[in-house]
């Protein structure tokens, strides 16, 4: 099944936010701090205001005077003692202090983009530089500079999960304890479409419209309308048109969205903004950035007894929309992984630093959990002299143990980790590796193989549970199925598609369930004026939650259709079956087709009007019963040139259980994309700041994006254990690649370097780092 949306993308007819044009539009350029931490002594905008083409210049003072509020955080995390997290303000334009390089202080709005950018250079910010703190480790040091004067220790929260006492006891009786200090490297999402926003105000209706490159327009409408601009939702429309990739970075409500919307109202002209890439580097939310000490307690046979994790997680200078939840509820709850570890305790300290805010990025917390688990297991195997695969196998949750209640809140519904492990080992020819290693050695190369078995949690989320954990939003999804009089159908979904192919897969589901041709179905998403309230696309939730909402709405349509058909066929509803697009009286060949029923609904002449309203349109909101739990096994084989430290990835095998597969081509594509980002994290990508908080990797010159020549073809296989709690049986696939593969890659690197005495290496294992590790090991020997 090929994708229907491809036609417009292949012919250059996509409509991304920056493609849109509005009569009379103005262009906005943001003025951003070039210091990581400073007091704003004065902001002189006079020269900018007088520059050619400039319509207006606004600062934080202007927004404050106009009553514009602070960008909210959507998840209240409490520390272990119950104290709510520190929640400093996050103004769209900074007042008094700037807190990271890139922090915006003013907006210049002009007739052309060039004039706006030129005039922005004339804004004079008189900044008094303050000491900056950049890394997790530095943020918690005694005497560290404070990002927020009122937040001691730069600590937003100290959160815990699990059973401390049981874990202590497990460690006390353990035969062996493995301990690792790990870094999960900061990443920059870098969707290829830079963020963009277009604000419009219609004075005739007193109505605002924001078009934005967002993964979730309803969420933006709610947050921006309610908390920032104080606009009622019925006077605000948010449209997410075609969006060029998100990976999480386009979930959040950003300052620029509020600024252009507000300015459009002030100036009574459309105001647009598109990020330059170097601007994206210092304004898009970053990902990951954990420092962790992880310990695994085992008995002498290699059985896992307990896991203890202490993490410091970098939140950046401000709380982004979901940032508080990522290193807590999306991380600590995954620390059982696919294993039967009985006692787990995790403590996470979320800290502020003078860096760009950190929030969800493909995997969001689950890559961090899988990485530490798999590195620990590899280390344990090494220290105990046990086989890496067998150590995993003996500790895996067995297939008959589901539903499986983990010690960290989550209950897994289904899975077969042994099956995905075995299938991956077979596909990767694990057994034949040593012969390949010898062959590489003959060519002077170090070959290594690494393995990772993982579970993740997605399909966000049961609202009540999420609320108990501090979420300030619900996490259901919406669908509206509108049948037209002549039998074609429009599906309106709260899920947004920015690469995931919903215009095809959701149409497939509707066409299949209604028994009508695919061409008779149109899928609409991304417009708050058209689509019922939905929470949008992230956390691998679209099919599991959005697809289920669609199924429920389709079921309602069929149920009403059955009643109409019963009337038309003069039968009782109980005798009417629906199959293959027709309603049939059971045991006869008397039938009416779906289009005939639709027509009857809209031209209700022969119709049970006493009992049934005309029309055929149903909506559903679906709140999931649980998260979903994809799992699998990833194996990576690579070769290192010891002279240069350069790594060549030779083979990547991914066997994933994502539940029922609706469109195999699309599912594989999602896995490919996740694998590429995961390999990027492990070998190429690292966001680097210097000690003063200057971003060193601030363009594609220095931030290494994976290129076609860095990657091989991937080998993708599957096992299916359907999700037990949604009618499609789907689990979600968007993030599994970036969750499972990084530890497989690092395991392979360490496997390759082990003969040289290299025992440890942090991501990214760049050529320089690998080379230095080899030299250091040689010096030691």
């Amino acid at each position, binding site marked *: 099944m090929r994708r229907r949306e491809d036609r417009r993308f292949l012919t*250059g007819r996509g409509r991304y936010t920056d493609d849109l044009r509005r009569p009379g539009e103005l262009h906005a350029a943001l003025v951003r701090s070039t210091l990581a931490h400073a007091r704003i002594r004065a902001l002189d905008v006079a020269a900018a205001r007088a520059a050619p083409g400039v319509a207006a210049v606004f600062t934080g003072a202007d927004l404050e005077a106009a009553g514009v509020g602070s960008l909210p955080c959507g998840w209240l995390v409490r520390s272990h003692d119950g104290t709510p997290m520190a929640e400093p303000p996050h103004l769209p334009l900074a007042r008094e202090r700037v807190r990271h390089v890139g922090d915006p202080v003013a907006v210049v709005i002009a007739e052309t983009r060039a004039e706006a950018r030129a005039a922005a250079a004339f804004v004079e910010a008189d900044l008094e530089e303050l000491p900056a703190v950049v890394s997790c480790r530095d943020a918690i040091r005694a005497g560290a500079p404070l990002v927020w004067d009122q937040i001691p220790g730069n600590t937003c929260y100290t959160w815990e999960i699990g059973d401390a006492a049981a874990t202590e006891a497990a460690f006390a009786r353990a035969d062996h304890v493995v301990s690792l200090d790990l870094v999960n490297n900061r990443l920059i999402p870098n969707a*290829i479409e830079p963020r963009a926003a277009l604000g419009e105000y219609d004075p005739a209706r007193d109505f605002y419209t924001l078009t934005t490159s967002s993964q979730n327009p309803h969420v933006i409408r709610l947050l921006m309308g309610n908390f920032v601009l104080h606009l009622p939702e019925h006077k605000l429309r948010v449209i997410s048109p075609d969006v060029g990739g998100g990976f999480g970075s386009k979930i959040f409500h950003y300052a620029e969205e509020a600024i252009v919307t507000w300015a459009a109202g002030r100036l009574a002209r459309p105001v647009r903004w598109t990020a330059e890439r170097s601007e994206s580097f210092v304004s898009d939310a970053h990902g990951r950035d954990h420092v962790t000490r992880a310990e695994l307690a085992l008995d002498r046979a290699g059985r896992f007894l307990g896991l203890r994790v202490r993490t410091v997680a970098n939140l950046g200078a401000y709380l982004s929309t979901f940032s508080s939840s990522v290193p807590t509820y999306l991380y600590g709850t995954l620390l059982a992984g696919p294993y039967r570890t009985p006692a787990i305790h995790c403590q996470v300290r979320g800290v502020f630093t003078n860096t760009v805010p950190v929030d969800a990025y493909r995997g969001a917390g689950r890559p961090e959990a899988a990485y530490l688990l798999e590195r620990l297991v590899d280390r344990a195997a090494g220290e105990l002299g046990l086989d890496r695969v067998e150590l995993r196998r003996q500790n895996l949750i067995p297939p008959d143990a589901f539903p499986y209640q983990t010690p960290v809140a989550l209950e897994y519904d289904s899975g077969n980790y042994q099956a995905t492990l075995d299938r991956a080992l077979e596909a990767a020819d694990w057994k034949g590796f040593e012969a390949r290693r010898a062959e590489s050695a003959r060519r002077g190369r170090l070959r290594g193989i690494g393995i990772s078995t993982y579970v993740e949690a997605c399909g966000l989320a049961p609202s009540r549970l999420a609320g108990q954990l501090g979420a300030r939003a619900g996490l259901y999804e919406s669908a509206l199925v509108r049948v037209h009089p002549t039998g074609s159908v429009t599906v309106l979904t709260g899920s947004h598609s920015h690469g995931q192919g919903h215009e095809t897969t959701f149409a497939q589901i509707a066409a299949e369930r209604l028994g009508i041709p695919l061409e008779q179905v149109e899928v609409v998403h991304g417009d708050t004026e058209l689509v019922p309230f939905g929470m949008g696309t992230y956390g691998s939730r679209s099919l599991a939650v959005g697809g289920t909402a669609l199924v429920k709405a389709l079921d309602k349509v069929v149920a009403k259709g059955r009643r109409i058909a019963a009337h038309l066929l003069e039968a009782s509803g109980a005798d009417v079956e629906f199959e293959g697009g027709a309603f049939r009286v059971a045991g006869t060949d008397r039938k009416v087709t779906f289009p005939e029923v639709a027509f009857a609904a809209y031209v209700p002449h022969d119709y049970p009007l006493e009992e049934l309203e005309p029309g055929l349109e149903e909506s559903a909101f679906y709140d999931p019963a649980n998260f979903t739990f994809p799992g699998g096994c990833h194996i990576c084989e690579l070769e290192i040139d010891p002279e240069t430290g350069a790594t060549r990835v030779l083979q990547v095998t991914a066997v994933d259980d994502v539940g029922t597969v609706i469109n195999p081509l699309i599912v594989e594509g999602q896995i490919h994309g*996740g694998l590429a980002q995961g390999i990027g994290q492990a070998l190429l990508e690292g966001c680097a700041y210097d000690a003063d908080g200057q971003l060193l990797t601030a363009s594609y010159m220095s931030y290494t994006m*994976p*290129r*076609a020549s860095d990657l091989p*073809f991937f080998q993708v296989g599957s096992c299916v254990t359907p999700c037990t709690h949604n009618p499609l049986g789907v689990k979600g696939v968007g993030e599994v690649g970036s969750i499972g593969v990084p530890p497989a890659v690092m395991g392979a690197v360490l496997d390759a370097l082990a003969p040289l005495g290299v025992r440890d290496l942090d991501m990214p294992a760049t050529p320089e780092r690998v080379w230095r590790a080899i030299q250091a090991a040689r010096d030691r020997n």
Partner: protein
Amino acid sequence: MPALSLHVNERPVSVEVEGRTLLVELLREKLGLTGTHVGCDTSQCGACVVLLDGRSVKSCTMLALEAAGARVTTIEGLALDGELHPMQEAFRQHHALQCGFCTPGMVLSAVDLLARSPDPSEAEVRHWLEGNFCRCTGYHNIVKAVLACAKARRG
């Protein structure tokens, strides 16, 4: 403002542009051809690739005036009479696009590769596409599509 004449997608174009106007800005802003995209500001990502006299160029790294007298093909000009170019069709068949943002540049870059090297190896394709970033697909299906297109054209 200097005058500029060229052909874009087989149509003659005569406009006035500033000296500093980039070719991509001419295409997107002046001519309304928004199929060519801007993804970076350091000339790495390749979302802006177009064909200039049959050769792929990064339109963000050329001044519009440098294209005087040239024949420029953008993604909008690739399909003929509504029928997809074989490379576009190959991308569609092999699911070589997800969000679509890198796709115009990727397709045109691949078209140039096959014009120069009709039977490329996998390594050649991957090396050629180093100047085209994709964040969605991991390049797997893109490389497959290009190789399939090459094979189809030879066979």
